[in-house]
């Protein structure tokens, strides 16, 4: 290392120490055999036992982890390619993790050793792999999980950092694999868990670049030029128009606390995530582990990123999830619904004729 580099190392090092202290991170030194150098790495805690992760389809989330120790968690994820509904009368040949778009929700605990079994089903056309943003290591697992149809790949990582993370397929050309539906969320719960809430849901925004215009019926292929131009025909929550509407609306009861794990798969757009008629009491910005902001109307969620939002459902009625980049909601499908059941509270909301919102 040059003298200059050493000086810079010292200066930058100070900043990093401060940042690490703020973040509550602790690194330990581990001697590298023979070299005399000391390489700082985090030493995972010992794992006890084995369990198979219970994965859920959107919009549901596996229950909180009550374990107080790290374990080995087996995650079985099947890649399935199949035509699925994108909108009424519109189908798209989705490439999925687990048969749904977004893929299965994975929930593990900080320190867990995750043994991920990626099975590419024999009926599929393409090789696939997985890059989990929760992974510390090259490619997030992509490099070691390239899997042909009919094969299975096993990959192990320790979930060193808690947080809410996107996972996605990273096989070339990556944009096609993401645009076709290959993404989902993995929650690495911090030790001690997140604060208890009454309800948790899984919502993920993404775009679809169909050859036909929005609403054009039939099986729609991917349109390369629209993808490059970032001109999606569809911007949706949970993989299809209406996936969170009507009988599929999210539900809560008045007085309950609700937590949404919100991901944005992109592949291109940043989401201006907003819940009409509600204010987020807490936002864990960018999916981190700290409730970093309170009383938020709209939170930005980058492509390939996530956020955790929490609120108390205080007034009954219908609450609409939107991307407040509002043409996407009005014209491209970025609409969902949360229905809150309960008694109108006229002290906090009433119309001119005293009409409550709920009826």
């Amino acid at each position: 290392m040059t003298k200059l580099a050493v000086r810079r190392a010292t200066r930058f090092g100070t900043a990093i120490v401060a940042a690490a202290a703020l973040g509550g991170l602790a690194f330990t030194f581990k001697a590298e055999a023979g070299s005399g150098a000391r390489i700082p790495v985090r030493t995972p805690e010992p794992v006890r036992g084995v369990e198979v992760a219970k994965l859920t389809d959107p919009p549901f989330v596996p229950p909180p982890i009550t374990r107080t120790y790290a374990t080995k968690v087996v995650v079985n994820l099947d890649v399935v390619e199949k035509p699925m509904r994108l909108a009424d009368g519109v189908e798209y040949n989705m490439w999925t993790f687990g048969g749904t778009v977004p893929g299965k929700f994975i929930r593990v605990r900080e320190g867990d050793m995750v043994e991920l079994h990626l099975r590419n089903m024999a009926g599929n056309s393409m090789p696939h792999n997985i890059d989990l943003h929760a992974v510390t290591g090259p490619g997030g697992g992509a490099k070691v999980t390239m899997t042909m149809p009919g094969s299975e790949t096993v990959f192990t990582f320790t979930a060193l950092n808690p947080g809410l993370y996107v996972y996605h397929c990273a096989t070339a050309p990556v944009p096609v694999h993401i645009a076709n539906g290959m993404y989902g969320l993995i929650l690495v719960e911090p030790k001690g868990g997140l604060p208890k809430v009454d309800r948790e849901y899984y919502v993920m925004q993404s775009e679809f670049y169909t050859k036909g215009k929005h609403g054009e019926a039939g099986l729609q292929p991917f349109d390369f030029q629209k993808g490059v131009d970032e001109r999606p025909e569809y911007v949706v929550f949970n993989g299809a128009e209406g996936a969170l509407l009507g009988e599929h609306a999210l539900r809560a009861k008045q007085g309950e606390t609700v937590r949404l794990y919100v991901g944005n798969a992109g592949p291109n757009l940043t989401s201006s995530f907003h819940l009409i008629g509600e204010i987020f009491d807490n936002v864990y910005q960018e999916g981190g582990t700290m409730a970093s902001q309170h009383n938020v109307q709209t939170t930005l969620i980058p492509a390939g990123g996530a956020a955790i939002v929490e609120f108390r459902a205080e007034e009954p009625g219908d609450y609409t999830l939107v991307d407040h980049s509002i043409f996407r909601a009005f014209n491209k499908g970025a609409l969902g619904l949360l229905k809150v059941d309960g008694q109108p509270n006229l002290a906090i909301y009433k119309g001119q004729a005293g009409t409550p919102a709920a009826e």
Partner: protein
Amino acid sequence: MSRRRTLLPLLVVVTAPVALCSGPGAEPAVGSGAAVRTAAAAPAAVARATTVAPTPAPAARPEAGVAPASRREMARVPAGSYLPLYAAGRRRVPVAAFEMDRYPVTRAEYLEFVRRHPEWRRSRVAVAGYLADWRGDLDFGDATDARRPVTRVPRAAAQAFCAAEGKRLPTTDEWEYAAGAGVDRRDAASDPAFRQRLLELYTRPRGAEPAPIGSTFRNAFGLSDLHGLVWEWVQDAMPADHAHHAGGAHDMGCAGSANGATDPDDYPAFLRYAFRAALTPDATLPNLGFRCAR
């Protein structure tokens, strides 16, 4: 517990090479806790698939007065050049004139081959999944399956078939050059409409069985079904065989695969190269067939 702090992030900045997913040549299975299992076969079978020399072509044994090769039309592909997805200096690669089967090899044709070469019957070949959809050694199923491309054959079997006809598998250069032809023009590889058409063929839902030959399109060289029917074996599919063809040092498993590509817009090529990069010689996939060249 020691709570010493560290300079690690900086050291990474100072010393790390420009790595997109992982450094070139990184061994996936070392130090990453990774293990890879494929659906294939016992080591002995793998060894066979990778080392068996092509069976020498026997003298043509006419059956009903027609040698097998003569029933399988070939098209002559004139000399030319093409631009691979990865090419140092963006240099086009020259390709000498060759002949190529007009269609992928069908199940009926493969049945004739295993009749003549019993060593390639299913029961004799220890490669997992080999002809797994056949009903027996000499029974590929319904008569309607006769014109479907044969699939679930490892590379060595495809090589043996071609050798028995006095042919060979095409090289990746030959295949890619031939496949760059559109319906009306011989070099359509950079035409956006042609690329979009290929993308649609590659990503449409896959049926349980490949469609019969002749169900996609015939290109300007007179070759049919190069795109969207089945993937096809080439001689040098694997990265170890030929660096630029399968992506080589380019990691086809990450966004970094765009780095160094001659044209990042050529999505059909990325799909093909990624498929070949993930292939092993003993792959017996239901959507992987072959055709021969000479």
